[in-house]
């Protein structure tokens, strides 16, 4: 505790002393306060290597705030440095702080030191405690941490590799991925795998190599999920024990000792088939409440279920089933596996399977009905006899048709699987005046024949038109039908139904009703939605069946499966839409009407709703000219069909147009006639006004002269100065051009082969004939060249760069007779056209040798503006060998040129290239023809 060393003075007159005392006291307080912050003592470390938890405990006195510093011992890197509040454990009197390391604690040694803190005041650091890592020099081995770690999917794990003493670190691979690493100490290297994905069945290998890949070490990490059981339910079978079942919603990806373990009501479950998703565990006694706990290294999950035992009985099959069979009845006896079932109220279901029974009588009479087409053909049909009715195996049916009046009888036998026999009554109908034929069917089995079942087939049935057709509305149970009972009627009824779209030998179903019935509900498994059924009620008496009532109905109405057939016509300025009825089969419901739409873009606008089914046309009026799309959709109670769209372009009423044209034509004709008539009448005045007589001219003297074409060709001498065989002074450089006419007069075949396109006019310089004279060129070559070219000095032309080429290839030029040499000489070689090379005045050029070609031939040939050669070829040699005239079509032209500047070296291949370059030649010829 701070103590005041000075007591307040009672002497007010000694104020300086008092002041000093106070100051001293304050100083003492301050000193004491500093002493209070004790340095943490007895720092103890305890590490959990698996969880990477480090527990630090120390004696810290009264302080509650401490600075904790954790460093990597070797590299002195700070891992953790924070101020933490820790309260003292009252029992032990120590402070304790837990820290979780990102890296495994084995990776490298950690130094831990603590100091107390009070506000800004801190104590001295405690002694450094070192948690030794596995990278101490004494532990020379190649190591990897953590080993066999199990982590959930998505976790981040830091692995470290401690390189063997004497080796150098290489790489760390996670599976097949090479990881980035950071150095933790001299031998320890760490890598962090983030967002880990499911490992393979056998985990993922993390392998650390040395730099030479001669040695390695590794670890295995298992990435999975915590357990997630679902659908937990317990049942009993014996009314004593419980069998609980559940499913594992996802595979945890952890197996063996890492796999999920289950306990049911705190008792371990031994699963009979752990590989199946459906798990099962039993408890000897029903406990009412069940708790399932699933645990794996990544977590646990529990589910509960509670129920009374009687609500969860899963009955077992009866045991020891026996029968006592009598003539007309049988007794089934069985036992229960568990005695407790005797007290259980159970519903028992007995299924009789018939296998090999004995005939015990003749079959019942079959239920016979008939179907007649409209041409005296039809079918006699009967329902198959049930097992109960057949009394044994039916061996066949006997069908007899007879008409007592015409003494006709025909009997035929049919196989037992026949249920319809076609009949043709045409002959009987023609002979008989009676209206009916009797059909009798007899079923046969081993014991004998059944009572005959008869049906009277009316021969005039088709003549009877049904009076009214009512609609039958289907309900859940079928078609409910009602009819009026005739009090005098004592006969039975037959209700038959068939698909309305059927016209021939229809599969008809029927039901026979006793007399006195006034309603029935028709049910059949064969009824289908969207199909119209005709339902008829017949009286069944000794006479032929008489149609009493007729219904139509759908089991379920659907939208029509097809649309109407729509056509559009223009009637004056109106559009008439007409369409045809939808076929009955496709209606799939009672049509209620038609909707007529006009479609503008993607939208349909309802024009009209026609509920009158008979009117199948609609007139749209008041439309202006243009394209219209109309859609007609039929609808039933189920909705509209897809509709049919028809387009029509409303055109102007053409009759009027024709009339207008005819009228205007007539008016024009009339006008013309009037004008013609007037002109005729006033023809003298017209002639005088428009065609007055012109007097013939009179010539004095002879003006006749031979006419000739005016030669306006300017003399070339006005532009150029001809130099005949000039004696070239090598010191002078002049620009010479061969005039077109003289160009080919030389002996050289190469020169004569030169195309006419290779010319320059005015300022255009054809590099081929422009050749300066050089002292080192041989006389013979010079003379041969000279003979090949008649040189013309253009007064306005500058020095050609071709001279450079000449100088570059003196050998070639000395062999002027050879085509190669000619190329370089007359074709200009690789030099091409270089008007910008020298820009002196033309007057200076004449008689003056340019020093440049001699001093820097290479530079000159490569430098400067070279529109001919630079655009086309990288290599002048190649260019000279492969250049084509055709390519030159797109070549740049000189500003003042009327002709394309052509790449060099084309002469040699000129003849071969003639077809390909014909276009260019034509083009250049065309241009040449414009020259003066």
């Amino acid at each position: 505790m701070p103590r005041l060393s000075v007591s307040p003075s009672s002497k007010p007159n000694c104020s300086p002393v008092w002041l000093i005392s106070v100051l001293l006291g304050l100083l003492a307080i301050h000193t004491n306060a500093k002493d209070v912050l004790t340095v943490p003592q007895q720092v103890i470390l305890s590490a959990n290597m698996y969880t990477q938890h480090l527990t630090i405990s120390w004696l810290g006195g009264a302080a509650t705030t401490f600075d904790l510093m954790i460093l990597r011992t070797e590299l002195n890197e700070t891992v953790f440095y924070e101020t933490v509040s820790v309260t003292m454990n009252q029992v032990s009197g120590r402070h304790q702080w837990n820290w979780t390391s990102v890296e495994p604690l084995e990776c490298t040694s950690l130094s831990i030191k603590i100091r107390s803190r009070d506000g800004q005041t801190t104590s001295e650091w405690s002694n450094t405690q070192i948690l030794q890592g596995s990278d101490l020099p004494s532990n020379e081995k190649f190591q990897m941490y953590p080993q066999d770690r199990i982590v959930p999917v998505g976790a981040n794990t830091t692995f470290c590799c401690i390189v063997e003493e004497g080796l150098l670190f290489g790489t760390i691979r996670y599976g097949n991925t090479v990881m980035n690493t950071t150095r933790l100490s001299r031998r320890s290297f760490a890598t962090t795998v983030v967002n880990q994905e499911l490992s393979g069945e056998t985990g993922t290998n993390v392998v650390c190599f040395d730099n030479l890949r001669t040695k390695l070490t590794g670890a295995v990490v298992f990435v999975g999920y915590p357990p997630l059981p679902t659908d937990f339910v317990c049942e009993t079978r014996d009314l004593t024990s419980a069998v609980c079942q559940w499913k594992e919603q996802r595979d945890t990806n952890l197996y063996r000792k890492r796999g999920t373990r289950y306990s049911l009501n705190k008792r371990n479950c031994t699963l009979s088939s752990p590989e199946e998703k459906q798990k099962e565990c039993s408890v000897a006694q029903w406990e009412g409440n069940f708790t399932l706990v699933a645990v794996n290294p990544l977590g646990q999950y529990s589910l509960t279920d509670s129920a009374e035992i009687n609500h969860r009985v899963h009955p077992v099959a009866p045991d020891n089933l026996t029968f006592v069979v009598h003539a007309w009845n049988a007794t089934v006896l069985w036992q229960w596996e568990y005695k407790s079932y005797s007290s259980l109220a159970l519903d028992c279901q007995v299924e009789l399977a018939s296998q090999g029974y004995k005939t015990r009588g003749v079959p019942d009479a079959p239920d016979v009905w008939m179907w007649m087409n409209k041409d005296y053909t039809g079918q006699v049909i009967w329902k198959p006899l049930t097992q109960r009715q057949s009394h044994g195996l039916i061996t066949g049916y006997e069908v007899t048709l007879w008409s007592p009046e015409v003494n006709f009888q025909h009997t035929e036998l049919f196989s037992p699987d026949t249920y319809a026999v076609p009949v043709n009554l045409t002959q009987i109908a023609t002979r008989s005046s009676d209206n009916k034929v009797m059909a009798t069917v007899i079923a046969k089995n081993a014991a004998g024949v059944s009572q005959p079942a008869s049906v009277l087939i009316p021969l005039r049935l088709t003549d009877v038109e049904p009076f009214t057709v009512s609609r039958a509305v289907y309900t859940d149970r079928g078609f409910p039908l009602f009819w009026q009972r005739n009090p005098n009627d004592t006969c039975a009824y037959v209700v038959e139904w068939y698909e309305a779209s059927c016209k021939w030998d229809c599969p008809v179903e029927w039901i026979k009703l006793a007399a006195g019935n006034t309603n029935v509900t028709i049910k059949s498994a064969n009824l289908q939605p969207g199909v119209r059924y005709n339902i008829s009620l017949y009286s069944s008496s000794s006479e032929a069946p008489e149609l009493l009532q007729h219904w139509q109905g759908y089991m379920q109405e659907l939208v029509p499966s097809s649309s109407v057939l729509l056509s559009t016509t223009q009637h004056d300025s109106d559009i008439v839409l007409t369409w045809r009825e939808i076929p009955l089969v496709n209606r799939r419901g009672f049509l209620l009407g038609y909707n007529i739409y006009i479609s503008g873009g993607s939208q349909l606008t309802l024009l009209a709703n026609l509920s009158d089914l008979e009117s199948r046309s609609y007139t749209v009026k008041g439309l202006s000219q243009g394209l219209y799309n109309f859609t007609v959709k039929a609808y039933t109670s189920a909705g509209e069909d897809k509709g049919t769209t028809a387009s029509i372009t409303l055109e102007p009423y053409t009759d009027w147009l024709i009339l207008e044209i005819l009228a205007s034509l007539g008016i024009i004709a009339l006008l013309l006639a009037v004008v013609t008539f007037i002109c005729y009448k006033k023809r003298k005045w017209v002639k005088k006004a428009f065609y007055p007589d012109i007097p013939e001219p009179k010539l004095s003297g002879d003006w006749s002269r031979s006419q000739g074409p005016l030669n306006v060709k300017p003399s070339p001498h006005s532009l150029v100065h001809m130099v005949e065989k000039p004696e070239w002074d090598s010191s002078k450089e002049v620009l010479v051009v061969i005039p077109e006419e003289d160009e080919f007069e030389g002996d050289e075949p190469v020169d004569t082969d030169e195309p006419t396109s290779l010319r320059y006019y005015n300022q255009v310089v054809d590099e081929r004939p422009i050749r300066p004279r050089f002292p080192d060129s041989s006389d013979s070559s010079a003379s041969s060249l000279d003979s090949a070219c008649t040189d013309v000095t253009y007064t306005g032309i500058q020095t050609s760069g071709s001279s450079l080429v000449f100088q570059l290839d003196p050998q070639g030029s000395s062999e002027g007779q050879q085509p190669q040499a000619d190329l370089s000489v007359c074709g200009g070689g690789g030099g091409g056209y270089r008007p910008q090379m020298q820009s002196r005045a033309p007057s200076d050029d004449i008689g003056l040798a340019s020093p440049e070609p001699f001093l820097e031939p290479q530079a000159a040939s490569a430098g400067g503006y070279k529109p001919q050669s630079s655009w086309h070829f990288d290599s002048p040699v190649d260019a000279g060998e492969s250049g084509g005239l055709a390519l030159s079509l797109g070549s740049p032209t000189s500003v003042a040129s009327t002709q394309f500047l052509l790449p060099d070296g084309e002469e040699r291949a000129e003849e071969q290239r003639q077809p390909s370059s014909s276009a260019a030649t034509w083009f250049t010829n065309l241009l040449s023809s414009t020259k003066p």
Partner: protein
Amino acid sequence: MTVWWRALIFLCCLLNCVESSSPSPVQRNKYNNSFRLTRITRTRVQLLQRKYKEQQLGNTHFEDRSRQLKDLPLLSTDFYSWLKLTDWERLHAAFWDMQAFWNMLEWKRKQLEKEEKEHMVVRAFGPTLPQSIRYIQLDLRDLMNQVSSQMSYMKSSWTKPTSPTALSPQTRSKTVWDSRVEGYIILRDLDLYLTKLARDFLLLASKTHL
């Protein structure tokens, strides 16, 4: 065609007769058989090693020559002392070395089988690792039988141990990784050992021939 086939079969028979009627002793023939079987087994071991590395270590090119297992026979031997070994010593050593490998394989196979059973691994094609190890064990057993019969031929007092001495190596694998590397070491050493054994049989066969 049939004529050719017949001729070929006849030729084979003839060669077979020549071979069997050759004066080389039965012993040599047996050593040759053992040599062949050793080579076949070695090929199998190499294939399995590759598969093992792929499945367990995730890399077919996995190599670690530095690690050894102390329960496995030593592979390095002095050439002259190896050359000077008597036939009996050679066969005896071979028998027990093979036994040691067999035991290690058995232990590793059971370990893998246990893992697989709990892993519920249903492999669609090819034998599983334990199955492949089983085949190699059968080969080794056959080789051991051959060696044993040779030994009993030399010394009638020799009787093959009725049941293989189950060494049951203690569970020394502390980590999954170590356990996997152990399997690799066993196969790696067995591969090398079978090369040595093949040489043993070649030497024995040549000696018998002389």
